[in-house]
């Protein structure tokens, strides 16, 4: 046998060495390529497979009433979702899930029968009880898959998952619905009301996180990295008093039934600080009931009529004419003159007249307001002059936005004094025509009289509460409009309206109240003329009149019919007949809710006299 020589063995060793060397060189080259030359590409590819950036939704801010009770709040509720591509038998899956989530078998089966799709909702926002039932069923299915209970194995819930999704809910249903507004269901974007006006603040800032997932898409434990935390939205504390709001809404709804009005608006404000305690419009809607929103839009139920709808205030605006004349010293409450039954003004075919007064007579300023005399008020305006009259109307805030915290507000219309060219302009304005106002503007106007002549910005958001606990407190604008003495005189005159004049139905047992009635023909913009049948009936009042706590504006759109009273039949189209009793009803409830003690003598309980003890 030929023994290998040393040379042959050396050659083999060298050959093997060369092969190994070449292999290492190849590996090294590839490593260099992977680690250095194409490192960035491979890193990106790896990250794409493993890492996912996810947005962290910011919690939408809560809207509270004045006592920090939720009016609008976002809650995370579970939804049942599916990957239709993984569902083998949609009908069987639907049969299992439908009774658990309270859905329709056919509807669920249809949504699951789309194998091209990778996502479908089985049920949105289920209850906690339903969640528990679905979870139990899913756990059972998981055990089946693991082989522990092969007899009951079912593939029905393969591809079914649950995830929490935010839902905007309004715990009190239709309470202050138009004020709060509503959000889009999917992305919670504000659409109406405070939800829309403060959408940016309520939304907050979404955060970002990085998630590492394994090839099956399951998150790797500890593979979660928070890059940017979500910042929750700002909470709003409103000035709404839920109890008063409820009473106001109920009164507005009843008014539509009792008077046949097309719509009713009630505003309750606190004159001292401008806080809006209630703002009710009827018809209304329930923002939780998404199915009824379309119908509500058609019925105009989404409108916050207290700020979106304008009307000519009629006789309620006479208070400005009289207050301006008193404040500028042109008249006193006792100043009197002859007030004819009919008063002709150049340029107007028909003379101005008073309702239910056929003969001229001597009247004082106090009587003119108490009896709501058109002719007398026009005579006061003539003494006042257009410029001064217009100046006071402006100072009372007409033709301007009341502020910036009330959503959907319109400024109304107060024509510049330069446009008061016709001879009837001043006269008509004096008795509440040619001026368009909102119910809120009128409430603020009467609030000025209640607040010793100082106009205070009506507002509905009292503070914004940031996630870090800091607060932006609303400081309402204020401006003096009339003197304190004039305001006091006006309150006395308004008390006279309720005690002896057109507003007697606004009286409340135990409290001295004041206010003014208003009835105007309804202007129909599409026809460019006043309606022959429809009227706007209103009453705006202050209670208690000596130490005002609330101002309430009641506006009814087109009340019809009559009401039988003790000795007469009264027409509901008049503010004193239809709107004044609503004021009384709301004022009584509001004063009780606010804990205001009666200021008039009420029958004392003899048993409570300390002398009896």
């Amino acid at each position: 046998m030929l023994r290998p020589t040393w040379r042959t063995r050396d050659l083999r060793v060298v050959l093997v060495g060369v092969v190994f060397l070449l292999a290492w060189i190849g590996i090294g080259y590839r490593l260099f390529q992977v680690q250095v030359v194409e490192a960035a590409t491979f890193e990106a590819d790896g990250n794409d497979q493993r890492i996912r950036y996810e947005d962290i939704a910011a919690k939408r801010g809560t809207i509270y009433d004045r006592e920090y009770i939720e009016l609008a709040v976002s809650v995370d509720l579970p939804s049942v979702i599916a990957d239709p591509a993984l569902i083998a038998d949609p009908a069987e899956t639907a049969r299992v899930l439908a009774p658990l989530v309270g859905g329709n078998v056919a509807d669920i089966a249809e949504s699951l029968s789309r194998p091209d799709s990778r996502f479908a909702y089985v049920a949105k926002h289920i209850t906690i009880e339903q969640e528990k039932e679905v979870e139990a069923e899913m756990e059972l299915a998981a055990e089946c898959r693991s082989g522990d209970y092969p007899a009951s194995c079912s593939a029905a819930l393969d591809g079914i998952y649950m995830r929490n999704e935010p839902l905007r809910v309004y715990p009190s249903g239709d309470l202050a619905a138009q004020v709060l507004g509503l959000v889009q269901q999917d992305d919670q974007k504000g659409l109406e009301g405070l939800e829309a006006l403060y959408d940016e603040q309520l939304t907050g800032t979404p955060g970002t996180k990085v998630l590492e997932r394994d090839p099956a898409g399951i998150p790797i434990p500890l593979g979660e990295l928070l890059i940017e935390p979500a910042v929750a939205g700002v909470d709003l504390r409103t000035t709404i008093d839920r109890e008063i709001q409820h009473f106001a809404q109920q009164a507005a709804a009843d008014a539509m039934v009792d008077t046949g009005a097309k719509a009713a608006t009630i505003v309750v404000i606190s004159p001292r600080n401008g806080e809006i305690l209630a703002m009710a419009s009827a018809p209304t809607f329930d923002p939780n009931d998404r199915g009824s929103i379309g119908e509500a839009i058609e019925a105009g139920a989404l409108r916050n009529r207290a700020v979106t709808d304008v009307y000519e205030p009629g006789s309620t605006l006479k208070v400005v004419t009289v207050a301006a004349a008193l404040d500028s010293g042109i008249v006193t409450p006792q100043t009197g003159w002859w007030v004819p039954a009919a008063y002709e003004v150049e340029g107007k075919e028909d003379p101005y007249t008073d309702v239910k007064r056929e003969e001229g007579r001597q009247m004082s300023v106090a009587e003119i307001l108490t009896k709501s005399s058109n002719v007398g008020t026009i005579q006061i305006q003539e003494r006042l002059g257009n410029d001064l009259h217009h100046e006071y109307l402006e100072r009372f805030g007409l033709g301007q936005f009341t502020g910036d915290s009330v959503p959907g507000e319109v400024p109304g219309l107060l024509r510049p004094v330069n446009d008061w060219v016709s001879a009837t302009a001043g006269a008509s304005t004096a008795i509440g025509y040619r001026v368009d106002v909102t119910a809120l503007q009128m409430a603020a106007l009467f609030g000025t009289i209640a607040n010793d002549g100082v106009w205070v910005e009506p507002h509905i958001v009292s503070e914004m509460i940031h996630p870090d606990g800091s607060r932006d407190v609303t400081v309402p604008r204020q401006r003096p409009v009339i003197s304190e003495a004039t305001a006091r005189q006006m309150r006395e005159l308004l008390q006279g309206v309720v005690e002896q004049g057109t507003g007697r139905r606004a009286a409340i047992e135990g409290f001295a109240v004041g206010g003014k009635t208003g009835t105007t023909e309804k202007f129909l913009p599409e026809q460019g003329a006043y309606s022959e049948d429809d009227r706007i009936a209103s009453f705006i009042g202050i209670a208690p009149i000596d130490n005002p706590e609330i101002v309430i504006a009641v506006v009814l759109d087109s009340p019809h019919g009559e009401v039988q009273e003790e000795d007469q039949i009264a027409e509901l189209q008049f503010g004193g007949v239809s709107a004044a009793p609503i004021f009384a009803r709301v004022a009584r409830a509001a004063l009780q809710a606010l804990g205001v003690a009666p200021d008039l003598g009420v029958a004392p309980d003899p048993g409570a006299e300390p002398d009896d003890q």
Partner: protein
Amino acid sequence: MSLPQSHAGDRPSLEVIPGATRKLRPKISHWILFGFAVIVAFFGLIYSRISLDSSAFEIQELEAQIAVQEDLHWQLRYELAQIQDPARLEIEIAQLGLEYPAERIGLSVPVVGIDQLDPDYRWAQLKAILSAQP
């Protein structure tokens, strides 16, 4: 039975070899200590890593629980607000047969609001009035 005999007399006596260097036995105790330290460090590292991971899992679990509790908190607040809804309360009140009093009864409390009077006297008077109420 005989005792073992001493062999001390057979053992060659120790002698000094001139020029020979002393051969030291390798000291293995240091190596044992070093090895022990390495093992401890190795297991310590593993233990700390396991502890860290375990803590991270606990934190993850706690965070999940916090999220669940937060959800529950808001759901309960929502339910509370629903329960306090004036419209719901009104229905409940009606079902209980309660209604606003038709007539208003004034309470005459002469001692209230008079600051000059002794508070104890005022309180005694007030208690007397309140206890007289039906």
